[in-house]
């Protein structure tokens, strides 16, 4: 039972990370109608920049994540301008190929600056909490709490603020939104920036429990895609439910069956779901 509680919290912490990363990706899909295959690379870059500010520059943990998030927001905007905007009228295969090019670029850049070796990022948050006999590290509690706060703020931003509402408007009907004076280009930039920012928060939170490497984004990339496909491309609630469900399934199978199965469970579930419902579980009617 203690092990179960322990793993449940581990799963929830991982789920928080997955959600933050998946929500950005699903937002980008909703607005730009493209699967951004470079998302995992943005996450990796966010982790390294957080590491740089925390360890090399020496600013506090929260500030390091904040600075990295703002920098990645700018990177995201640049990515939209330089890569996706020029391709907006191309067939969908071209976006994906270009995104792969961007992904390789980011990985090579990180490797050139920080090297290919694994790096450890020490967290200033230490200590453990005892919940029902299980010892949960404080870092995991911080991840869960931060993820919930960020998700709540994001929901507030999208539903209440003007800029957030433009995102939803473009998702629903691009032409209609431009008719009422919303600039689709601005919204695209905002969305990609936001997705990079969310990925960075996720990366900054999880970096102390995982190791950093230039390819750390690859596995996450595939898992996050599995999540948003499970939840239906473009669906926010789907991304949240899918993120937590997958993370808990992963930690539980890794604990009770084997770690290799835990790593593969995302894809096994993905294959099973797509074999039965080719358009995901919670797909909303998407206008094409």
């Amino acid at each position, binding site marked *: 039972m203690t092990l179960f509680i322990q793993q449940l919290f581990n799963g929830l912490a991982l789920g928080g990370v997955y959600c933050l990363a998946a929500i950005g990706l699903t937002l980008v*899909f909703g607005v730009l109608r*493209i*699967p951004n295959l470079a998302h995992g690379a943005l996450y990796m870059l966010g982790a390294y920049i957080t590491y740089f500010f925390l360890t090399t520059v020496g600013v506090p943990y929260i500030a390091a994540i904040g600075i990295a998030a703002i920098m990645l927001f700018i990177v995201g905007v640049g990515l939209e301008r*330089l*890569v996706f905007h*020029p*391709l907006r*009228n*191309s*067939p*969908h*295969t*071209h976006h*994906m*190929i*270009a995104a*792969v*090019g*961007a*992904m*390789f*670029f*980011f*990985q*090579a*850049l990180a*490797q*050139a600056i920080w090297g*290919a070796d694994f790096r450890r990022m020490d967290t200033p948050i230490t200590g453990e909490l005892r919940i029902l006999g299980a010892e949960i590290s404080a870092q995991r509690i911080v991840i869960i709490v931060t993820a919930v706060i960020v998700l709540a703020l994001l929901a507030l931003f999208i539903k209440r603020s003007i800029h957030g509402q433009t995102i939803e408007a473009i998702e629903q009907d691009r032409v209609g939104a431009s008719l009422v004076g919303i600039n689709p280009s601005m919204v695209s930039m905002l969305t990609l920036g936001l997705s990079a920012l969310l990925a960075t928060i996720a990366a900054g939170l999880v970096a102390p429990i995982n190791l950093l490497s*230039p390819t750390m984004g*690859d596995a996450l990339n*595939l898992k996050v*895609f*599995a999540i948003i*496909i499970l939840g239906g*491309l473009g669906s926010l609630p789907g991304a949240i439910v899918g993120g937590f469900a997958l993370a808990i399934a992963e930690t539980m199978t890794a604990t009770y069956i084997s770690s*290799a199965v835990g*790593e*593969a469970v995302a*894809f*096994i579930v*993905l*294959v099973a779901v*797509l*074999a039965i419902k*080719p*358009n*995901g579980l919670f797909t909303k009617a998407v206008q094409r």
Partner: protein
Amino acid sequence: MNAMKNPRIIGTTAVILLLGLTPLAFAQENYAMRVITVGMCAAIAVYGLNIILGFTGQLNLAQGGFFGIGAYGVGLLTTDYDWSFWAAFVVSVIGTAVIGYLCGLIALRTKDEYFAIFTMAIGFIIFLVISRWEPVTHAHSGVNNVKFPEGGGLVDFESPVAMFYLVFAILLICVYTTYAIRRSSVGRTLLTIRTSEDLADAIGVRVGFSKQLAFAASAVFGGVGGGLYATVVGFIGPDAASIDKTFEFLMFILVGGMGTVAGPLLGSMIVTFLFELFQDFQAYRFIVLGPIIVALVIFAPRGIVGYLGGFVDKRSRRRRAEAARGADDDLDSTGASTSGGAGDHRARNLADGIESGAGRTGGTPSSEETK
């Protein structure tokens, strides 16, 4: 058009001849021969990608996985089970075909982005199985001493030149298959699907069946390329099946030109050369190559062969237009004797215009190269 005068056929033949003659220049340099031969193995897999992505317009990101299955099939059967190369090769290719067909059954239920992500997941599962199933695949220690093909006393495949010509011969079969597919009704069916699936469905094309066939064929080419790769290199590790392989193939086909006959070969050779050029920088090469991929997709999505093809089309159209104008002048002076010819020219020009127009609205470099 007379086949012997078609610039496209002349160009493709020239590229193949040039490649076929490289051993004359490099026969003494084993390293160079090996690099070119490995590049040709990749080119075979890229021809597979060409069928599913170039002709049918479906982004298949599992090609690296199928390449890995072919490579591991040959690698494991010739070492651990001590089969002969040829038996192992045939069995691995058939195995890849079966796995490809089964994957296609599920994968092709999905469309567009779902298809791309789904095939990426298939590729990753294949990679996971190969890199984790230690008792069978030896995981990270890889497979050593893969057998050379048996020459039956006639040829000694341990010589790099003999190996080169073996891969070259199989590559030629792939090039010819691609050429034949494009000229056949199967090729036109696939191109119709690329232009518009709904349209293809509406005019009675068996969309599902054709896509299934294209997917299985692309997997087979991947398996053939992988099997040859294993014997050429002699050692294979899990990275033979990694997702990076798929992305390399993508770059090859993009540089050469999607949906063309000579594109995959030309692209593979040029990018292999570039990789060698940047070899000192190893992993950093993508700092340069990454932006090149992006720039290619934005500014030159049709690839080298696509552009050359467009150039040839434009020239032949202009020549025909001039011929038609000349015929018009004749008509004015000499009366009705040549009217049939002029009308024919005009009709053909009109047809060209419609075809290239359709290509543009399809958003892909389509019908201009399909003639």
